[in-house]
């Protein structure tokens, strides 16, 4: 009896395919036309910030699916639709690239237009009536999807993009459930794009995002299309590698699995990752990143959108150097024995030995040196410890004066580059020292013809600039109004001057700084900006991790504490000095050390960093430090206890209060804003007395090797491959 009822019900359901019961309606409701009524907004768009209306823009009214909306005239139909929160499927369109209009996935219907139109490429007209969910649109989308899939391989199970593939997602949402093609799929030869980007070109759907990215953002004309129609292929024309410091971004941009990340090939699936929002500290900009880990191992790093710093790009070092986090790690304390070899000891012994040394030595016999990746917490703790031991010999990663914040930060800010109308670079190669700043500059040069002048070695910057000279003499010539770039600078309303640390850290750095100040004054610039390549640099200056006036010279120290510092020449310390290295990688610093204390890397601790603009941000702990390694501030606090000089904090919260009492802006480490320096302070920074005559040695750049600039990237095998393939980019 019961069985018969079930049968009857099933046959009733079959007989009218248009009737859907409640359960299925919850999944995809079917409209009167027999087609699915699609969700109006996808989770990705919910809560997205809409762009602010520009001042003076003319507004027009259009109707989207019956909602009348006001939109800036000249915006595309796609923007109009997005502004009411409706999602339009797309492959080729990308907010930060030019419009190509070649994938046709974004078709919508316009009233009185006989054919659907590509919404990303079509401007809105007053009174336009747009439909995004009409039968015509659905049919068009299904058609486009069918064409795309006709040649797309069915290798999702072995594709690294699987699970985070736009084509998969949109085929599920907007595609038809069957194909009418039985022909053989086309196949395309894979290209070799170098050690970072893996290609499976058969999967390419020819959206040309990668081509546009490399031309527009990365500024290397290396990717292009060859052939047409079914024979179209993407590739470098002459079989070269994609030689750019930003090349990894094409992996994120590619909507399918044609371009995937080579170092991560076949290692993990998208749904196995646990993500942590953090920041990167391998360059001075500290871009926002997402750290994906699996089973306590950092697998990959991807950019997070942050309009103020990295838009949505990151450099290859940020993205691919993380495999260095698994190599050459220090995971137990090491002590140099009588045989001259480092041997493991336990923490108690290690700290006790060091504490005894500190007790036995006078304040003027000990000194601390901070490296490029050290966070503010450890710096403050170490500085407090050394001060309480009577030493002010605390040497920061970049030895600049910490008196005025305006004189050592990038005052123009990274996003502020978009507001300047003339730019002078002094002794820096932004392409290696701050790739993200460089892409901003390129954007301005490309779109607004920003005039850029460079004093220093003539490096390849992905955009045109006037090379004014290699020595400081070129700077003085900018003070004579007859020089062409001087007139450009003085004609500009908001000129910016960016000085690299290579210029300021030379013997004659003071003289160069005062020349720069004179140029800034002559051109009416509000101040000048310093570009740091090290993430620890500004934080160290902010908390006053600088040698005091009575600090002992390195050559007189009996004990040197290297906090992640690898570049100290052994000759600068006396032969018999006891060297302590605290850090996460076994590099040059650990090799010269008598005692090694293993610390945590930036993915293994919550740590505060101040980027070159003075933006205070915090990393998040994604995985645990390896072995017996400890968070750096804890090591210092523990040492202080054993040395009989307990620090007034034993928790991260209390330590951060101490930081905030040193520099109040360190309290809110949300990276939201940069504490601006007031006009008077900026003027004071410009008014510093001039010092001496600069030498006529040519100005260099801060990094001699872009791919291997810090302990993490030096340990990374991928970065080593990059050096082989692309050189050092110096």
């Amino acid at each position: 009896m019961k069985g018969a009822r079930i049968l009857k019900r099933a046959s009733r359901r079959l007989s009218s395919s248009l009737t859907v019961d409640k359960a299925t309606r919850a999944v995809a409701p079917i409209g009167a036309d027999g087609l699915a009524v699609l969700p109006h907004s996808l989770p990705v768009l919910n809560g997205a910030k809409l762009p602010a209306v520009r001042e003076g823009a003319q507004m027009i009214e259009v109707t989207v699916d019956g909602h009348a909306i006001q939109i800036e005239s000249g915006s595309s139909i796609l923007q109009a639709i997005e502004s009411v929160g409706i999602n339009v499927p797309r492959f080729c369109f990308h907010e930060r690239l030019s419009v190509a209009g070649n994938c046709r996935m974004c078709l919508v219907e316009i009233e009185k237009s006989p054919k659907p139109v590509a919404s990303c490429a079509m401007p809105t007209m007053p009174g336009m009536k747009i439909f995004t969910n009409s039968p015509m649109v659905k049919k068009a989308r299904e058609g486009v999807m069918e064409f795309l899939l006709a040649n797309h391989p069915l290798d999702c199970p072995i594709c690294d993009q699987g699970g985070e593939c736009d084509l998969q997602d949109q085929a599920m949402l907007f595609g038809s459930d069957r194909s009418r093609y039985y022909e053989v799929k086309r196949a395309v030869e894979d290209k070799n794009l170098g050690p970072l980007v893996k290609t499976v070109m058969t999967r390419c759907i020819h959206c040309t995002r990668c081509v546009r990215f490399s031309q527009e953002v990365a500024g290397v004309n290396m990717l292009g299309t060859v052939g047409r129609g079914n024979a179209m292929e993407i590739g470098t024309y002459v079989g070269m590698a994609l030689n750019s410091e930003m090349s990894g971004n094409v992996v994120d941009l590619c909507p399918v699995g044609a371009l995937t990340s080579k170092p991560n090939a076949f290692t993990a699936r998208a749904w196995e990752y646990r993500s942590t929002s953090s920041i990167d500290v391998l360059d001075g900009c500290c871009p926002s990143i997402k750290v994906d880990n699996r089973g306590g191992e950092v697998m990959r790093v991807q950019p997070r959108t942050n309009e103020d710093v990295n838009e949505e790009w990151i450099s290859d070092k940020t993205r691919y150097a993380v495999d260095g986090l698994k190599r050459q790690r220090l995971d137990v304390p090491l002590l140099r024995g009588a045989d001259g070899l480092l041997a493991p000891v336990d923490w108690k012994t290690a700290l006790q030995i060091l504490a005894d040394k500190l007790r036995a030595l006078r304040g003027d016999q000990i000194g601390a040196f901070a490296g490029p990746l050290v966070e503010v917490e450890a710096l403050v703790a170490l500085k407090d410890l050394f001060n309480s031991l009577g030493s002010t010999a605390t040497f920061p990663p970049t030895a600049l004066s910490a008196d005025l914040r305006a004189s050592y930060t990038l005052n123009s800010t990274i996003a502020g580059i978009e507001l300047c109308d003339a730019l002078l670079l002094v002794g820096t190669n932004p392409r290696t020292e701050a790739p993200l700043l460089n892409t901003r500059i390129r954007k301005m040069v490309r779109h607004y013809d920003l005039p850029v002048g460079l004093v220093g070695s003539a490096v390849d910057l992905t955009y045109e600039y006037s090379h004014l000279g290699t020595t400081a003499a070129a700077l003085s010539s900018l003070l004579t109004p007859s020089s062409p770039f001087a007139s450009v600078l003085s004609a500009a309303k908001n000129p910016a001057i960016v000085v690299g640390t290579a210029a300021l850290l030379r013997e004659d750095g003071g003289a160069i700084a005062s020349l720069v100040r004179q140029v800034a004054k002559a051109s009416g610039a509000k101040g000048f900006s310093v570009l740091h390549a090290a993430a620890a640099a500004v934080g160290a200056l902010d908390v006053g991790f600088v040698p005091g006036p009575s600090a002992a010279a390195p050559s007189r120290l009996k004990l040197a504490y290297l906090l992640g510092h690898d570049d100290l020449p052994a000759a600068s310390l006396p032969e018999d000095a006891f060297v302590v290295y605290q850090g996460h990688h076994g590099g040059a610093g650990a090799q010269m050390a008598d005692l090694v204390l293993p610390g945590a890397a930036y993915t293994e601790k919550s740590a505060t960093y101040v980027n070159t603009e003075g933006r205070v941000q915090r990393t998040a702990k994604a995985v645990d430090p390896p072995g017996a390694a400890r968070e750096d501030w804890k090591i210092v606090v523990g040492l202080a206890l054993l040395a009989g000089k307990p620090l007034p904090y034993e928790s991260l919260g209390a330590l951060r209060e101490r930081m905030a009492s040193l520099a109040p802006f360190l309290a809110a480490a949300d990276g939201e804003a940069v504490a601006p320096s007031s006009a008077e302070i900026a003027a004071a920074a410009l008014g510093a007395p001039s010092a001496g005559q600069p030498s006529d040695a040519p100005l260099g750049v801060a990094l001699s090797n872009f791919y291997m600039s810090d302990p993490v990237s030096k340990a990374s095998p991928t970065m080593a491959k990059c050096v082989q393939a692309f050189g050092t980019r110096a």
Partner: protein
Amino acid sequence: MAGSSTGALALRNVAQKSIPFSSSMVETKQRVLSLHRDFLRCVPWIKRSYKVPMSEEKMRTLLTAAFKEKAAENDIHQINRLVVKGRMELEETMMMWKGDSHVISWLEEADAKRTAAMKSKKNEFLDKFFNGL
């Protein structure tokens, strides 16, 4: 105050304060725990309202230490008395019947006491550090 609203907390406080005595130890234990938790819940609010120059974590530790001090008490009458007194203290604090200096100096004294006690004991931080906690 994250988690529980100030109103609910104040209500519970008044209700609990007016129970003069609970005769069973089980019930009393619950009242003590609830009082402890209410104190901890109030910490962010107290820090803000009385401008306490201490981290929340520290304040919580000190409050907990004050409870632990009486951990050996096993006379049910005494415990009940303490609970009511605690409730009264909490009420005074929440109603802003105290001044900034009352609260701050109580905490500071408690801190000084604790540091002195810790000095004589072995250091907790180092124990944890060596054990990798």
